[in-house]
């Protein structure tokens, strides 16, 4: 089982960032994927390579500012639970952290790499707007 964690500090109010990140249907606006579709507690994401993953939304906690999902019904991926946290840094900014535990473990690396791209895009978006 691979466990990875990526994070970034953003000079922007945590609630403003969470209002965006905590909208599961807007994932493709910051994460490097082609499209997102949400129905109830289900989400489907399609990568630029054409691969589509079905996900169960496990946690969408607006108080904790935590989003968790799990990929399901994809035989190659035996376990993948991802978490996005937006944490107030106490100084008017926030930290956005993406973490996942994953099997097969090697897929955690490209997902972690994509998370870095997504987190940087979030930072660029919110610090430009601020």
């Amino acid at each position, binding site marked *: 089982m*691979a466990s990875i964690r*990526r994070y970034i500090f953003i000079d922007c109010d945590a609630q403003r960032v969470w209002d965006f990140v905590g909208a599961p249907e807007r994932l493709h606006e910051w994460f*490097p*994927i082609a499209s997102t579709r949400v129905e109830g507690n289900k989400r489907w994401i399609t*990568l*630029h*390579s054409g*691969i589509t993953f079905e996900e169960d939304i496990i946690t969408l906690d607006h108080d904790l500012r935590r989003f968790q999902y799990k990929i399901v019904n994809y035989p*190659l991926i035996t376990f993948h639970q991802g978490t996005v946290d937006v944490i107030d840094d106490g100084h008017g900014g926030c930290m956005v952290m993406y973490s996942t535990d994953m099997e*097969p*473990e*090697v*897929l955690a*690396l*490209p997902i*972690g*790499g*994509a998370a*870095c*791209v997504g987190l940087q895009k979030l930072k660029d978006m919110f610090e430009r707007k601020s």
Partner: protein
Amino acid sequence: MGRKILFITTDQQRYDALGCNGGTIARTPTIDALSAQGITFDRAHPQNVVCMPSRSTMLTGQHVSTHGVWMNGVPLPAGAPSIAVDLRKVGYSTALIGKAHFEPLLDPFLRFTENRMGTNGVFTELDEMTHDPHRGFDHMELATHGAVGPLHYSRWLRENHPEAVGGFYQVLDHELQVNAAGGGDSGAPQVKFNPINREWYHTDWVANQTIEWLNSLPTDADWFCWMSFPDPHHPWDPPSSEHYRVRWQDLDLPAGYIRDAKVREAILDDKLRHWRGWYDGTFISNYEAPARWVPATLTADQVREVNALTHIENELIDEAIARVLVSVTNRGWGDDLDVLYTTDHGEFQGDFGLLFKGPYHVDSLMRLPLIWRPAPSVGAVPARVATPVGLVSLAATFAHIAGIAQPSYVEAPRLPFDDADARTLGHERVLTEWDSVLFGKIVHLRTICRDNWVCTAALPGTMSSAGEGELYYLAHDPLQHVNRWDDPSVRTLRDDLLTDMWDHLPQGVLPRRSMDAPV
């Protein structure tokens, strides 16, 4: 018109693969002729012993700590220095045909340009900021080992010969680990009989596409073409029609294979501890070696079969190069053609009872074929160079051939014409780095080769502590069986080598860039 540059690389090829370097199995008359006409380097080392870092060094002329591609899976930034950019600026047409691998191959998000170009069926992608072609290449037509994935060769094979796709070895298993499944006659890992027609195999495809690109150029063009063969890297699955060339049953075991398991294991125990850990299957620190394969199970017949298939691949490469050289001559470019031939790193091929590669800084992986055949029109004197040199000198050499100033970003002088020239240029030592952090299994090594000694310092890692290392005297111990790191009689020498190494290694890139894929 200026000099043309044909830069030929193979992947994972040993120094002794070639007849001109004492190899006795593969027939390599084309490369041997280049050696006889040019400069052959007998102590050429890579700056890292896996693909992406080593290839990034070739392109940038920088050590690994500077370009920052510290392991496979760490992409070379799109804006990194590239000698192809500088050559293009002075009018060279530029191409890279075959294996690039400056960016990860496993790329489900299709983030990387190399994979996008193959997927989209295009041969260049302009940089968003500079509007120049990706890494300075007008034409990139890419391949890797086998027929899966998004690169141009895979696409070509799927579209034109779909029946041949399944003949290749399946490189990854169902859990995306490098496949440990055995094949062939001996059950060796990563071996398969491949019924593909020779003409469709990637070696001939690389040569064909190179010839096609060259034929697209006007006669008065100056050009730089990096022709990059994916072989003889594993998997070992050359066309079965070519197996007649080298019968594994007829091969002697290589000199580096230690038959007696007790002797072999005693030698491994005398090295840094991660060697024995891998041999026993308890410490896997390099993704490219199959995680479920235990080297201690390797048999003598498996070593023979892997060697036979490797040398078949070496022969096919030599013949492919011959075709390209004929094509160049037919265009009237022969007298003005510089040819450089090398590889990115070596391969154990049975040495120490091991296959593949990893954090093991010995000749099996570090001593490389490197030949520079200057353009006949310049009248260079053939020579063999004993002075240690690195692939880090390639970028400056290309600049020299093109008659441009050495770019400020490169970290080593051009390759020398002979040993006297090496001294003049300041070639004295060559440095190699290793850093792996694969799911908590950490190995960091720094190595210097100078004065016939190879000295490796281990930095703190999972199985090593500061102050541990390896020291080999190549003149007396060419197979590196005797680790003299703790030998008091050479302590002063060892410490001098280490001081020299730390003085000449570049500053590390901090923070370390993220590893975005296993390969």
